[in-house]
């Protein structure tokens, strides 16, 4: 067993680089799918270093505090999961992180920023029930919310949660800002209202949001790998295939409206998750 301090330090300092690499890979793959050459693999790191060296323009101090909280809660969530702590707690901290982002967008007077925040609320409303049901399912199998007890039943979670897994993939598409679910922010459409929530952040503060996104991507990868925790290479392979499918989905789908997303998530995804939980309960 590795020392928990070392694990925590690794989670804090190594994770953003893995996240940045995944974002770079995402941009490269997207470009190849659109028959473009695409930016270098390290492009996200160039972007963030450039942003950190730009002039800081502060709209109001509260917004900057919320950007910081967004990052801190996300790091805390990654550290908690890496240390094998309570997953329910990690999920609530993740929600806190997103709420900080929403409040940051709401704290300025720009209507675009507020519309972006409202869209983020809708996204949260869509995916939070599914994440909770996922943890309920894990609890029914393992009798524990602790991440370190993920192997308690001795067999991979995916075999017991076959319907929650696709529902989680939909949540992952929302969190990764992929079409057709990219309403509050997206990697594309920089001129559109979907960029509203980041509108008033500039320079180093935009870099904070970008770094937080790197942690977030790693977190999603971590959870996907947990579905096959008995063998880490198989788990990583599943995560890589899922990541590729998300990028493919992003490139073949158009962006739809938020009422569609809410309806879809609360019928199809929630239906899958509830069916799985009922099946486990009976």
């Amino acid at each position, binding site marked *: 067993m590795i020392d928990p301090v070392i694990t925590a330090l690794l989670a804090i300092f190594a994770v953003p680089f893995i996240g940045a690499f995944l974002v770079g890979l995402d941009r490269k793959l997207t470009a190849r799918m659109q028959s*473009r050459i695409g*930016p270098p693999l390290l492009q996200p790191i160039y972007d963030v270093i450039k942003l950190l060296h730009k002039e800081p323009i502060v709209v109001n101090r509260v917004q900057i505090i919320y950007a910081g909280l967004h990052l801190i809660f996300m790091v805390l969530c990654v550290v908690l999961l890496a240390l094998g702590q309570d997953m329910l707690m990690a999920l609530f901290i993740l929600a806190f992180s997103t709420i900080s982002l929403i409040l940051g967008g709401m704290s300025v007077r720009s209507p675009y920023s507020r519309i972006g925040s409202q869209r983020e609320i809708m996204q949260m409303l869509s995916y939070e029930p599914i994440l909770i049901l996922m943890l309920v399912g894990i609890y029914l199998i393992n009798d524990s919310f602790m991440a370190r007890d993920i192997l308690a039943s001795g067999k991979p979670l995916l075999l017991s949660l076959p319907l929650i897994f696709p529902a989680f993939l939909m949540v992952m598409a929302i969190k990764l800002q992929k079409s057709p679910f990219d309403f509050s922010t997206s990697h594309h459409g920089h001129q559109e209202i979907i960029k509203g929530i980041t*509108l008033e952040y*500039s320079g180093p503060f935009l870099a904070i949001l970008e770094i937080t996104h790197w942690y977030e991507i790693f977190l999603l990868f971590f959870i996907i790998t947990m579905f096959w925790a008995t063998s880490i290479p198989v788990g990583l392979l599943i995560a890589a295939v899922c990541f590729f499918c998300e990028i493919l989905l992003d490139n073949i789908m158009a962006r739809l409206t938020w009422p569609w997303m809410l309806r879809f998530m609360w019928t199809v995804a929630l239906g899958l998750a509830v069916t799985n939980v009922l099946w486990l309960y009976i």
Partner: protein
Amino acid sequence: MNCREKSPWIVHFNCNSCNGCDIEFLACLTPIYDVERFGIVHVGNPKHADILVVSGAVNHRNVRVLKNVYEQMPSPKAVVALGACGATGGIMADCYNVLGGVNQVIPVDVLVPGCPPRPEAIMDGILQAARLLNVHQKDRHAGAEVRLTLQPVSEPEKV
């Protein structure tokens, strides 16, 4: 710092252009030219941008907006003026409402000639401006940043 050259984010402002330059500029974003391979991202928000790309001749109506967009960009920043109109006012130069080229209002770093300029020339201009960002950053530390000190533009006379 090298990262600044590798990730120039641009914001495009159309100062009453005939759309010729704009269409050639947008062609740069297509898969044929693919500016993203240089790390160039077309952001719609001056607060995220490093380089302001202006097309068209400045007139009394949009001079206020152009200055506002320029001032909202965080330093270091650079300006690229597209086409003959962006440089001097072009065929619009003698119009009653036209002030002239973009450099009458904000400091321009790179002029891309042509009517309209080719996408290759536009990409080259943007990358040259990206290299100038480092120079601007040094100037900023030396306290020699270019501010909007050009003569105030007179309001059009009311008829």
